[in-house]
């Protein structure tokens, strides 16, 4: 099956290695992975900022680039959530776009959801030498959890990784305080929220916090490092599953 990988703008610039981990996982599941070169952003920043027109243009661009694939896979719950649950609103009043969206929407998946629910991945790729072993705790990113129902999928997959043990933290489903531009506009409130998340991560005693969204990742890692924690690793679920880190 031909899978179009939507890399996401944050992975592209901030953590390109996660994109490669996603490709490795998809290929190990027998998918033919195609990365359309012209892709940029799903439009979420504009949509959340109230700039619907700009968001709509990018949403249309997404359709152009991805509607021909058997599946579209995204290593991010929030970009996936934008496409699957908000593009309908963006295209309201544009029947042709809605029609095109309806055809592709059900084939768009967040990475772990795709691996667990569509290809039913049983065997993870062999880990690279010296890759991460230890205890992890999983942070449920808001959009993945509440818009796409991603909760069991990453946990089921992580259970297959030898040498990695999941220790659930308290309030795993509570927001980390990122919220896109919220983290900049209301930095002090955002910090107070992420402090609770960091405390829960610490209380779990895990060596690493694993999650599926870059926004949460940068937020949590940024606060951990600023407060002097240089030890707790912050990893994307794709990195742990692929055995790349």
């Amino acid at each position, binding site marked *: 099956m031909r899978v179009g990988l939507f*890399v996401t*703008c944050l*992975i*592209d*610039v*901030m953590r*390109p290695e996660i*994109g*490669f981990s996603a490709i490795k996982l998809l290929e190990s599941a027998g998918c033919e992975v195609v*990365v359309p*070169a*012209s*892709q*940029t*952003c799903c439009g979420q*920043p*504009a*949509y*959340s*900022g*109230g*700039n*619907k027109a*700009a968001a709509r*243009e*990018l949403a249309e*661009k997404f359709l152009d680039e991805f509607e021909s694939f058997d599946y579209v896979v995204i290593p991010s719950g929030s970009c996936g959530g934008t496409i699957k649950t908000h593009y309908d609103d963006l295209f309201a009043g544009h029947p042709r776009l809605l029609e095109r969206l309806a055809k592709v929407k059900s084939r768009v998946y967040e990475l772990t959801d795709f691996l667990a629910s569509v290809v039913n991945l049983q065997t993870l790729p062999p880990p690279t030498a010296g890759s991460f072993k230890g205890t992890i705790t999983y942070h449920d990113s*808001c959009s993945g959890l*509440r*818009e796409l129902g991603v909760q069991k999928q990453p946990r089921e997959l992580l259970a297959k990784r030898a040498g990695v043990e999941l220790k659930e933290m308290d309030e795993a*489903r*509570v*927001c980390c*305080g*990122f*919220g*896109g*531009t*919220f*983290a*900049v*506009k*209301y*930095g*002090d*409130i*955002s*910090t*107070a*929220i*992420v402090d609770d998340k960091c405390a829960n991560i610490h209380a779990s005693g895990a060596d690493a916090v694993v999650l599926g969204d870059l926004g949460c*990742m*940068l*937020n949590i*890692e*940024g*606060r951990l*490092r*600023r407060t002097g924690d240089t030890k707790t690793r*912050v990893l994307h679920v794709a990195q742990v599953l692929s055995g790349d880190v």
Partner: protein
Amino acid sequence: MQVQTMHFKSRAGEKLADQRLQQTLKKFAGRFVASRAQAITELDDFEATRDAATERRMRAIENLDVWLATFEKEATRRGATVLYAETAEQASKLVVEIAKKHGVKKVTKSKSMVSEEMQLNHALEEVGITPVETDLGEYILQINDNEPPSHIIAPVIHKDKEEVADLFARVHQKPRLTDITEMTREARDMLRPQFLSADMGVTGGNFIIAESGSVAVVTNEGNEGMCTVMPPKVHVVVTGIEKVLPTLSDLATVMRLLPRSATGQSISNYFSLLTGPRASDEKDGPEHMYFVLVDAGRTSLIGSEFQDMLRCIRCGACMNHCPVYQKIGGHSYGWVYPGPMGSVLTPSYVGIEKTLDLPHASTLCGECHVACPVKIPLPDLLRKLREKQFDRGLRPGFEYFAFGMWAFVTKRPALYRFATKIAARMLKFMGGQQRLIHSLPLAAGWTDNRDMPAPSGKTFRELYQEKTKS
């Protein structure tokens, strides 16, 4: 209540710095969330009950005019007087007129957020009538210089026991007590003579029931009963026009969710269904019963993209579950209704221009939508308000400029490739050896308290191209 919404940022900053408040908020948040989670498991099918309640509330709102007319007819038939107020000020005037007509000197009140919209206590005091708040939380606030409530069902949630103990000792002029039961008894001793000497009782109305002309009032202290069946010869219900439910069966459905979503109780300690003034064959109840049904912006939501907001049953679950509310408390929001539901309602009621922070001060995490017993899509409504602000040119100029640049670049893949290549390298350079950026000029809100983990210097796009070429 005075509109203070434009001071959101500075207020929130003060609240975050208040260590005592932070402790209090932390305790409360965990408790409400846990008890609600427990309480909803008592229902055989919580989701189906939610659907039913949502559907019934929608039915009420979609034909609001019809149900209000039915309510008026039924309430009038049972001897009550139904009055409508277009604005909050008019509503206050109506209550004052009623009080004057019956020669009222003292009014006991049970909790009502609509009366906060109306600034009713102030209006009564201006004409020499004494309002006495009888909900324990509201009483505490009233004796503390008319402090505004910070939560719609737990108005004094921002105070800890010690603060209340200090306040009681000072205002009651009695030895300082710290045992909650004893403190409550002391408040009760203060309130009892007020109940006995009041001429009029004002209550809110959780719902008004069209088919029977009744009002349903939910409390945990029974003070609504004291306000309406003790000596007061007049009972005035003040509530929003949207609180109508067509039938008692609708009320039964909604009541399965209200206390559970609010405080995590299966049922509140008290629940009154009051219908008409005292009939000749009845032993208690007021001689006169009035309903003041307040619009104050509600009809402007009908038929708008915010109509969903009108089915709100004021349980407070959205704020209890909101990570932002849990940190900054209710006063930061600056008007009557805090938290997610407040951030949607307040712009509609006091003006979008005065509430620019409210829809943006949310992570859009979606937990409020999950917790809402009547499935109001609060994050979507907040986003729509952001769109309104953007379209009406109310955002700072910098945002339009930044969005303009961003949109220009993201639409052009070649330019985007070039721009991200530069950005990745710059960010890498800024991160230095530690690979952490300590300061970003345009994102100080981020870097004041957090580092920005730096990237490795090449974009995925570049690396992918290199890899597929080789």
